[in-house]
């Protein structure tokens, strides 16, 4: 049944509501898919997918659903029905007629079934439909010889092929982002001092003017509730060399945090690979311009939401040993990890954002230190979705290290 496709979409993470599904059914019943699977693909996508970030998931669901259909006969009856409606008028040229004269319908069907089978095999070989050009007796798109409709048209394969090409992979929000999207996520980080039912004690100028005019000049004062955000934020950013590849990403986050004017206070400090007794005031990490970590712990209350941004990848000693600091002219008498634990203990609302995609965390050079830091701070990828998850964590006290099984 075609309803299965609904569950495919859900499974692949396309949030489809029942209403939209109903709309699609209606549109299909009206024959709006035209007569090709390609039209069907676009119709489904236009109605069911509401952001380019989900185009890729849709493609995956579509390709996977139709890939499971072995041969053309396997297409659900319902789809045939939809597609067979309203065949566009045939415009048959002499050349087309000559091309197709020798094939009868049965023959066409058989060949198509073969093509479909081939296609599936090729996919199993790992080559996702890409570059499967080639010639075919079905290749004269739009022409339906002998009354064979969608099935006799290569475009039917084309839709699946298009889906399989995954042209929209780069739009996934878990992979791309922008300042605005970060900002939007940060907007959720608010905490209003007044309850919604607090006293109305602020003059609502616009409302007053409006109401007074409505009264044709008789003054009527309008009052509103003041809304003040009490959220205080501290951003600690790794400015070390291994962060270079992520400069743009970090800049975007940085800009977004700065543009978010709704915080009551914002403090930004920098560190070099790991945090020790100094936090720098400037990304150049100049040894003349710093604040004592101890001082920050003493003066900033634990209501600060602390966002640490860093790749958490460093040498073993840098994190675990006193004196392990990377700067050759500095020394630390407490290991980096101890400082991190102290920060975490004081700032209970804190997260670590890592620009390295999570799928590499256990596999790359810094895997050990990433794992160790994850036992201290909850860690998320630095992506829009990761930031959104972090913000949820920043709203309540969350435990670190649930995800990490590392023992050391």
């Amino acid at each position, binding site marked *: 049944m075609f309803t299965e496709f609904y569950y495919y979409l859900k499974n692949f993470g396309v949030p489809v509501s029942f209403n939209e599904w109903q*709309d699609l059914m209606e549109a299909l019943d*009206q024959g709006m898919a035209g007569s090709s699977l390609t039209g069907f693909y676009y119709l489904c996508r*236009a109605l069911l*997918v509401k*952001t380019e970030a989900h185009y890729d998931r849709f493609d995956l669901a579509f390709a996977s659903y139709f890939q499971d259909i072995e041969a053309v006969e396997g297409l659900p009856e319902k789809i045939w029905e939809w597609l067979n409606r309203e065949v566009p008028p045939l415009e048959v040229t002499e050349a087309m007629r000559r091309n197709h004269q020798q094939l009868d319908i049965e023959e066409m069907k058989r060949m198509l079934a073969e093509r479909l089978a081939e296609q599936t095999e090729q996919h199993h070989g790992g080559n996702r439909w890409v570059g499967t050009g080639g010639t075919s007796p079905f290749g004269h798109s739009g022409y339906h010889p002998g009354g064979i409709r969608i099935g006799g048209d290569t475009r039917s394969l084309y839709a699946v092929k298009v889906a399989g090409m995954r042209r929209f992979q780069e739009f996934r929000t878990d992979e791309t982002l922008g300042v605005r999207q970060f900002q939007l996520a940060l907007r959720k980080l608010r905490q209003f001092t007044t309850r919604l039912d607090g006293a109305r004690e602020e003059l609502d100028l616009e409302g007053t003017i409006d109401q007074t*005019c409505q009264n044709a000049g008789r003054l009527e004062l309008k009052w509103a509730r003041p809304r003040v955000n009490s959220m205080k934020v501290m951003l600690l950013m790794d400015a070390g*060399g291994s962060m270079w590849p992520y400069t743009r990403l970090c800049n975007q986050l940085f800009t977004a945090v700065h543009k978010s004017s709704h915080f009551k206070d914002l403090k930004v400090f920098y560190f070099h690979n790991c945090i020790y007794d100094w936090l720098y005031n400037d990304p150049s990490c100049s040894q003349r311009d710093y604040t004592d970590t101890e001082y920050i712990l003493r003066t900033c209350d634990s209501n600060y939401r602390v966002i640490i941004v860093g790749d958490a990848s460093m*040498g*073993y000693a840098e994190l675990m040993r006193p004196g392990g600091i990377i700067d050759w002219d500095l020394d630390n008498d407490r290991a980096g990890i101890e400082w991190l634990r102290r920060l975490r203990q004081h700032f209970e609302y804190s997260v670590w954002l890592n620009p390295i995609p999570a799928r590499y965390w256990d596999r790359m050079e810094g895997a050990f230190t990433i794992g160790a830091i994850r036992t201290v701070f909850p860690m998320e990828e630095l992506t829009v979705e990761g930031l959104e998850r972090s913000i949820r964590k920043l709203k309540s006290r969350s435990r670190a290290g649930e995800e990490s099984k590392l023992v050391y």
Partner: protein
Amino acid sequence: MATKMAQYKGSAQYIVSDELRNSVNIAIALGKPLLIKGEPGTGKTMLAQSIAEALDKQLIIWNIKSTTKAQEGLYVYDTVQRLYDSQFQDHDVSNIKQYIKHGKLGEAFRSHDQVVLLIDEIDKADLEFPNDLLWELDQMSYYIPETKETITARTRPIVIITSNAEKELPDAFLRRCIFHYIAFPEPDEMERIIRVHHPNLDKRLLEQAMETFYMLRNLNNIQKKPSTSELIDWLQALVVGGISPSKIKQDMPFLGVLLKKNEDLDLLLNGLQAKTQNRSKPRSSMWGR
């Protein structure tokens, strides 16, 4: 029935992909707003113009700004004017109708013939803005309590809404729209777009310029990628400046037309320099265990 509806097939000045044309026709047939998203300069605004032109309908444009309120699109009750009039007593202020000024949406609903209504850059407005329009766009009607009137669309306008993706739009709003993302044109489609604007362009010049253009777009750390309209302007500059095609890739003249941000210009220049010098390696490759 779908086939009886006006079908959009594109227009002479506007190059439309099959995908986009499909979405436009789906939206028209279902009578739902079409939400168009895409990078700036991908022809979102122009699409509405093209639809109006191709279907020979009036185009009503509602440009959204950060301060635009949904109500303004329906109507404003000009109470201030009424107040003035009441002071001078030379108007009949009891006739409230004369103080109701219809907005763009109102204009579209009240039009005799079907119009194309463009709500341009909806993402500029406040987050709540789209939600405030849900009912009106659904029902294509609104009520004016001051005059106890209901305005209902005589023919459902074709509604095109554009967004530069500066903000996410609310789900409830999205559910009511047909959505289409205009992907950045591939070189062959771009060439067709260029030809609309510069029909007599030298083939080599176009080739070289396009290569440079896509190279710049593919640079990793670029902040503001050059868009279609910037390419069109750049080509104009190259033609007017009498630049020889062979010089384009090498000299990249009038680069400021393509890269609007100083950081991007710097990045490119530094990048070119770095190719010729041997940079020291970043620290990450120096870790030892």
